[in-house]
Each structure stands twice: as structure tokens, then as C-alpha cells.
């Protein structure tokens, strides 16, 4: 593309670019229609053809609609899942942990899929807290659970950072108090005892006597933290028989500052800086032999990048599936034209030009394709909503997918391609012998 055009294109607003791409994709269908119908008014006959074989036509339209709807529903879902997982990680600016796998730690600290990792000690935590530009450094201590809900040890400041103001109650102020995620079934005032571990292997009796009461509830975050129960990190250390992060004379304290000498360790620390440049500086500072620092968003973005080819394959498969279904429908149309072959033959016997009959058959096929595509848009909208709810339910990540420009482009490309293919049954209809068809 010449530079001047490239510059002009890149100067356009994204929505205008998308609109122009849509127009470009629809152009072949529109141009074909203009050329095929030039000089004629074939559309006056199409409604009667459609009504005469309405049930058969309805089946054809439904087939196109379902294939289009499922295709665009799936591609929209893939985008919604990507955005949902990224949104769930947004509050986790920078994670500092012991050196290891960034992906393992991402899953553990952000998506609450715990795994055994080395702990950061008190000295490392102190270096993080003391670093320039750190406005929040919160330990994230996982490993316990209650009735399938992860119990996470952290600080009151982290709870506020994660969800903002509580929708109910107050922050925890001592060991034995907890704040529930928005989707946790325990009510305010309910008591529970954390089990050691998670899943089927969780040991419900290991922390007997560590009764905990729910004193607050977070606002929804659209992340797995909605199903978590947050407790003071001091409580997690205490129920495991460790020091509670503070010197004995301050053992009732909740939250920072922690005493490095009484800091038992934490799998991860969430670090927040007020500016992006400061976050990158902190990542550089804490990428050392003893600590690993990473941006969850970056790791996630790389994972999404790896899936880029899969996304293209999905889009291609959606188009191929739709074209195959339409090819089947058009083959059916060839058979269907036999049903009204006598009417077409009559038209020709009355002196209708061959191109007029050609345009009637093409417009008939184009109406079914266009109707199917429009109905497919509605099916896609409904399918997207159903799939989003189901994925959100199964993953605990809020997926809020909706049809957008990529899906509109997909449908426009499909309509143009199949309307060109619809020229075939129109040609075949002209090859039928008029006299034989008139005799029926």
C-alpha cells in the first residue's frame, strides 16, 4: 500500500476503519446484486416463491442462521474470555515471588490455583516494602480452604485495593475475623474453621480451634477472588504454628509493618506502585537470583499471543463451516428450483428474458442467505450470552462477551462469498429445457 494511503488509513478513527472494512466486505454482494438485477425488478416475484415453499425455505434459513450464529458466538466468546482473564488480573500490578515459573505463580496468586512454591522470607519482604515508589506490598498466603472456597491470608490494605469499599460489614481487625468474597455463601456473622489444603485432600480437622467469623463482604471483582475468603495473614501463620509476623510485644497487630525476624514467609507479594514507570523499575530491581518479579498482565498477554494462531484457525473454521452449510443449502436450492421449474419456464415462454429469470433465482437465493445471516446475528447474540454465563460459572472469571466488529466482518465476508456462490443455482436454472418443464 502506498505510504500516503497507509498514513491516511492509520489516521482514521478505529470505528471508521472497521466500518470501511465492513463496507468493503459487503461490496462484492452489493455489486453482484446491482449487476444481476440491472434493468429488472425481480424482487416482485421473490416473495411469492418464498411463500410457496415457506417451510422448506424456513429450514434453509434456520440452517444458515445456526451455523452463522454458532460461528460468531464462538469467536466472540474467545475474545470475551481473553478480556475477562485480563480484567481479573488488573489489580495485580506486579507479583514478586521466589524464582520459578511465572505461569505457575500467576495461576496461584491471581487465579487462586495454588501450588507448592518456595516462600519469600522476611528479609526479602522488607526489601520490597522499603523500595522506592512502593505504595502497597501485600503478602498473599494461600493453602487453606473452607467448603471449596480458598482461604487467603493477606492485609486489610490489599482487601481495599482489590475491591474498594466493602458492600457489607467491615475489614478484619484481628485473627479470627474474615472478609468474604462476593460469591461466598457464608453470611455476615457466620463462623467456620479453615481446612488445611484444598480439594478432596483438605484436612478439615488440622486447624481445629481456629474458628473464624465473617465480618465483611467485598464487592464483586469478576475474578476467582469472589469465591475466596480473606483473612489476616497473621491468622494463616498462627494456625500453622508459626510466628505471626510481629514481635511478641505487638503480637495483636494486624497488617504492616511486619517484623522481618518474625516473618515466616509468603509465597507471593503483590506490589503496587502509583506509576507504570515505577512498576517497571521495581520489576527490574526484584528480578534477582533470589526473587522473581513479573507483571501478570504481561504473562497473560504472552499466553494469549501463543493462542493467536488458534484464534485465526477458529475464525477460519467458522467461515469454512458456514460456507459448507451454505453450499449444502445452495445444493438444496438447485433441487428446489426443479419444484418451481414450471413457473420459470412459463415466465420464459411468456417472453421474459433469460437474464430476468436468472436474476429472480439469484435474488431468491440471496434473500435466503441474507435472512439467514441476519437471523444468525440474533442467534449469535443469544449464544454469546448463554456461553458467557456458562464459562463464568465454570471458571469464576466474569466473561462478558458480546458481538463486535470482528463478528460483523465475519458475517459480511460470509454473505459476500455465498452470494457469489448463489450465481451457480441461477445459472443451472437457465440450463433447464423450457418445453419439458412446461409439460411438467
Amino acid at each position, binding site marked *: 500500500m502506498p505510504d500516503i494511503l497507509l498514513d491516511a488509513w492509520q489516521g482514521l478513527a478505529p470505528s471508521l476503519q472497521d466500518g470501511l472494512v465492513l463496507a468493503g466486505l459487503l461490496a462484492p454482494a452489493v455489486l453482484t446484486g446491482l449487476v444481476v438485477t440491472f434493468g429488472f425488478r425481480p424482487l416482485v416475484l421473490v416473495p411469492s416463491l418464498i411463500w410457496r415453499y415457506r417451510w422448506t425455505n424456513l429450514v434453509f434459513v434456520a440452517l444458515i442462521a445456526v451455523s452463522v450464529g454458532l460461528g460468531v458466538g464462538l469467536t466472540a466468546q474467545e475474545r470475551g474470555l481473553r478480556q475477562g482473564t485480563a480484567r481479573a488480573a488488573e489489580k495485580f500490578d506486579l507479583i514478586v515471588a521466589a524464582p520459578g515459573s511465572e505461569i505457575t505463580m500467576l495461576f496461584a496468586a491471581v487465579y487462586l490455583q495454588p501450588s507448592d512454591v518456595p516462600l519469600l522470607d522476611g528479609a526479602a519482604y522488607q526489601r520490597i516494602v522499603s523500595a522506592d515508589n512502593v505504595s502497597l506490598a501485600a503478602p498473599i498466603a494461600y493453602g487453606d480452604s473452607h467448603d471449596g472456597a480458598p482461604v487467603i491470608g493477606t492485609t486489610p490494605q490489599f482487601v481495599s485495593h482489590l475491591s474498594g469499599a466493602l458492600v457489607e460489614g467491615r475489614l478484619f481487625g484481628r485473627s479470627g475475623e474474615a472478609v468474604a468474597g462476593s460469591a461466598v455463601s457464608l453470611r455476615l456473622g457466620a463462623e467456620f474453621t479453615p481446612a488445611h489444603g484444598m480439594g478432596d485432600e483438605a484436612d478439615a480437622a488440622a486447624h481445629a480451634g481456629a474458628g473464624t467469623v465473617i465480618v465483611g463482604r467485598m464487592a464483586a471483582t469478576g475474578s476467582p477472588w469472589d469465591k475466596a475468603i480473606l483473612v489476616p495473614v497473621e491468622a494463616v501463620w498462627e494456625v500453622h504454628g508459626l510466628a505471626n509476623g510481629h514481635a511478641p510485644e505487638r503480637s495483636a497487630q494486624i497488617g504492616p509493618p511486619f517484623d522481618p525476624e518474625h516473618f515466616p514467609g509468603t509465597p507471593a507479594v503483590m506490589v503496587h506502585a502509583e506509576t507504570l514507570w515505577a512498576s*517497571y523499575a521495581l520489576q*527490574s530491581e526484584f528480578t534477582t537470583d533470589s526473587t522473581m518479579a513479573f507483571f501478570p*498482565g504481561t504473562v497473560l*498477554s504472552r499466553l494469549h499471543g501463543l493462542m493467536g494462531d488458534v484464534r485465526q484457525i477458529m475464525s477460519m473454521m467458522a467461515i469454512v463451516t458456514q460456507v459448507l452449510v451454505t453450499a449444502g443449502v445452495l445444493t438444496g436450492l438447485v433441487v428446489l428450483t426443479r419444484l418451481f421449474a414450471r413457473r420459470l419456464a412459463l415466465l420464459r415462454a411468456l417472453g421474459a428474458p433469460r437474464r430476468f429469470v436468472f436474476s429472480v433465482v439469484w435474488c431468491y437465493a440471496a434473500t435466503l442467505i441474507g435472512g439467514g445471516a441476519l437471523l444468525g446475528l440474533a442467534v449469535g447474540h443469544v449464544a454469546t450470552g448463554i456461553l458467557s454465563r456458562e464459562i463464568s460459572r465454570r471458571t469464576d472469571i466474569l466473561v462478558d462477551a458480546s458481538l463486535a466488529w470482528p463478528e460483523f466482518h465475519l458475517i459480511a465476508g460470509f454473505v459476500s462469498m455465498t452470494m457469489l456462490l448463489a450465481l451457480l443455482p441461477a445459472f443451472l436454472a437457465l440450463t433447464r429445457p423450457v418445453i419439458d418443464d412446461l409439460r411438467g
Partner: protein
Amino acid sequence: MLVRLVASVLLLAASSGPSLSAGSGHAVGAAEHVSELDGVRIIHAWTRATSTPEALVYLELENRSGRTVSLIGGESESGSAVTLVGLRFRDGAAELVTLPAVPVKDGAELHLDPEGLALRVEGLKEPLHPGDVIEIEVRLESGHVDVDVEVEAADATGHSHAGHAH
């Protein structure tokens, strides 16, 4: 005699081709993998082939200078501007934002990697092809470092020598 003169001029013009190309910011051939200024090393600078007027340059910066240095941005004859950018996420979508500077402590490293920090070269004068080398002048608070940036494939995820010790 005239034929010899013409042949000599043509030969001279042919041999000076790469230099002319290098002067305009593009060259093809071996590139320096390491650049250094007062204990600050810049290693494995690379970018992706592109036909758009913008490219993101990635590199590794090692600070062994004995003091904190700040990466500010850069300049290049290959483009109209070189700015330091970072990736920010808003409502599930990523966007590149311009950063003023990133300080790197003594003994630390700063990695400019895909989906993270980068030097954005804007207003590229020519498309970048795999195997090309462009030159940029990386601006640090303490001075400028000339860096050869190797152009990798459009879908590359790292420098082709990534992992080699220098």
C-alpha cells in the same frame, strides 16, 4: 580509457552501496550484539519486520556502572521519533503508554520484551525486512549509546541470539 573510467565509477558506486544504505539507517549484514557506555551494556537489541510506520524495539540493559541510570528513550535516523513505552491494561484491553524514564539500579537489569517495555520507533521511513539492521541511539540519563537493532521475522518472540552469553 573512457570505458575503464566508466567501469571504475560503476565499481566504486557498487561497492559504496551498503554504506549509503547504512547512512540512511538501514543495513543488511552482521550487527553488533553488545553496546556499552560507562558500565551500562545494551545487549541483543531487536525488532520485528513490519510494513507499518511504527516498530517496537526490545533489548536487555545491564547496569554495572556503580550508580542508578535511567533509560529515557532514543533517536534514530530510521524514524522520526523514538519513545519509551510500557504496556498498561484497562478494562481487559492492553494499551501502550509513553513513559518518562525508568531507573535501573546498579547491578540490576532491565529487559525490554514483547508485551512489556519497549522503545517505539515512530515514522519509519522504510519497511523493515528480516535480516535488516537499523541503528538507534539509546538515550540514558548519563549519555547516549549507539545500538544496532536486528530485524527479526514479523512473528518473532525474541532475538535470534537470545540466551547466548556476551
